[in-house]
């Protein structure tokens, strides 16, 4: 495994030789450890990440699962395609992916940030109970399924493009924002959004006249107080991806919350 890991000051000649062939930004070379994921399986890759004492950059990532699972206090940058359950149980670490994510990004994460410069697969933020997920592109099915909140824990997921069907399925807490940027006529959300939703809040940057919500939720235009809350999430999002906040906020937003007078009862029985 040693040949996959090189650090400044160690094996200098070897590292310099390698760096000539790998285009890695200057600051990365001198502040963090670079891990070539090419030949590592998910266990070896995660062991290497855990043992590292400084920030890490994973290059050539190709489908290794559970990257940074449960990790705290580290910045991890990933070039390539991380596998399923990226940042599962994440506990404070910051992950940036230069590419797309696969399924179950931030599964049950507790704290920290996951930034995806691309799109993500299904079931992102599954049972997430804290931290932030920022996606530049689209999310697949079931984004934010069973997200929850607890005392000071308030998870937030912001999706830049569109979300697939069953957005916020069984959502119990936390906030999901879908911005619908660059949709080009595509719908902002698929079928059956908010099915089984019984807590938390969803912001959709659209009128949503053509979106069919279930009976147990209330969808209404955002009020001033909602926009104030939303601004906090959107500011952070725009900071990450370099968008103009005013432009993003200058649009109709729909807010969806559960209707406590008409609670969720059943879903799959009648097909």
């Amino acid at each position, binding site marked *: 495994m040693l040949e996959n890991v090189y650090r400044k000051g160690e094996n200098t000649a070897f590292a310099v030789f390698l760096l000539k062939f790998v285009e890695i930004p200057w600051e990365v070379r001198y502040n963090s450890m670079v891990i070539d994921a090419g030949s590592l399986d998910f266990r070896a890759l995660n062991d290497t990440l855990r043992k590292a004492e400084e920030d890490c950059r994973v290059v050539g990532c*190709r*489908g*290794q699962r559970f990257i940074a699972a449960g990790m705290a206090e580290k910045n991890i940058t990933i070039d390539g*395609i991380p*596998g399923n359950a990226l940042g599962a149980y994440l506990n404070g670490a910051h992950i940036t992916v230069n590419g797309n994510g696969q399924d179950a990004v931030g599964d049950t994460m507790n704290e920290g940030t996951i930034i995806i410069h691309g799109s993500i697969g*299904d079931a992102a933020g599954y049972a997430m109970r804290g931290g932030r997920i920022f996606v530049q592109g689209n999310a*697949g099915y079931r984004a934010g399924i069973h997200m929850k909140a607890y005392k000071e824990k308030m998870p937030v997921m912001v999706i830049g493009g569109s979300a697939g*069907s069953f957005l916020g399925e069984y959502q119990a807490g936390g906030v999901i924002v879908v911005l619908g940027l660059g949709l080009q006529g595509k719908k902002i959300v698929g079928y059956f959004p908010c099915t089984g939703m019984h807590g938390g809040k969803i912001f959709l940057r659209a009128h949503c006249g053509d979106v069919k919500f279930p009976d147990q939720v209330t969808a209404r235009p955002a009020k001033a107080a909602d926009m104030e809350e939303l601004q906090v999430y959107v500011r952070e999002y725009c900071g990450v991806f370099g968008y103009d906040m005013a432009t993003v906020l200058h649009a109709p937003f729909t807010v969806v919350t559960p209707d406590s007078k008409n609670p969720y009862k059943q879903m799959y029985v009648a097909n």
Partner: protein
Amino acid sequence: MSKGVHFHADLLCMKMNSFIFQISLKGKTNMKIEGQVRIPSGCAIAAVISKEGNKMSGELVAGAMKPMHDRSNGLGGGFAGYGIYPAYKDFYALHVFFDQRATRKDCEVFLKERFEIVKSEIIPTRKIPAIIDEPIIWRYFVTPLQSVLANLQLDEKEFVARTVMKINTEMRGAHVFSSGKNMGTFKAVGFPEDVAVFYKLEEYMGYSWTAHGRYPTNTPGWWGGAHPFTLLDYSIVHNGEISSYDANRRFIEMFGYKCTLQTDTEVITYILDFLVRIQGLTLEEAASVIAAPFWSTIQDKTDPGEQEAYTYLRTLFPSLLITGPFSIVLGYSGGLMALNDRLKLRSMVVGEKDDRVFIASEEAAIRAMEPDAADIWAPAGGEPVIVKVKEGAY
């Protein structure tokens, strides 16, 4: 989630006592039947097709299975290649497992009564430690005897399909696992990347390929139970576990199909053969039968013609609605169709580069085939992705 798929012990005993080669990685043969064994789910699928009909070696799609290694558990891997037998493209290529030499001899006698066999040979394999306890594996390039066809008043395809069913249900120890023209299935108990090495897939050139890594959920891993499941030139690789199996099976068995392979995927192959070959539906229509939209979604359709078509197909074939999770790739002569269940309970992504279209359970697998694949997207549940090779190029 194993409920819904049940097999009778007597059926298992009849067919499998003589025909189980291996169920565990250690080579033990302590066969367990449905209900006695519980294995958590997984599976991986991948496919590639050239719209121009350009040939690719089987190694390409085998490479896609490597980053998805952990989706399988070594109890089944397989591939289907199309366009791989150009020298024999007018003959049905029968790939057959035999438990012993005597079974092969008997089967050959049976085949000779029905077909002209233009070539018969052992399918070349490599001895590797990862693949053990292999059966005797042969292939036959055949064409039905015209006199027999005339006597039975059957068309060629129906005759071949019935013959395959007959061998697989009645001839103990023999199992036809591939029966199309200019295509072939290669499968085994093992991890898919090892199965590719075992069958020397790098020596086959096809215009489309599908691949599967198995993680059996309800039933034991055995050679016949590995994917793809084929009938004529239709092949299915499947990730998932259908909960409508018994309802589907009862319906399809009324039309002469026999589900004997101890796995749910088999029924999908027969359903598609029935809908497309026998009923003459288009692939899009067949997709809207097996992954029918919800009634509420149909009611909301703004195009009345579309609404009427969906209603008609759901009403006509209610027993062929497949529920439960699935992502499948159907291979056929000249094309592929990828499809997710209507709730999209399994993952599937599609990408493109030049004349090639890539389909896989994970984007990482597509990147393994083509690092620069563009337009990566995930089809919605029930949305078929049909890719055809241009006319005349296959």
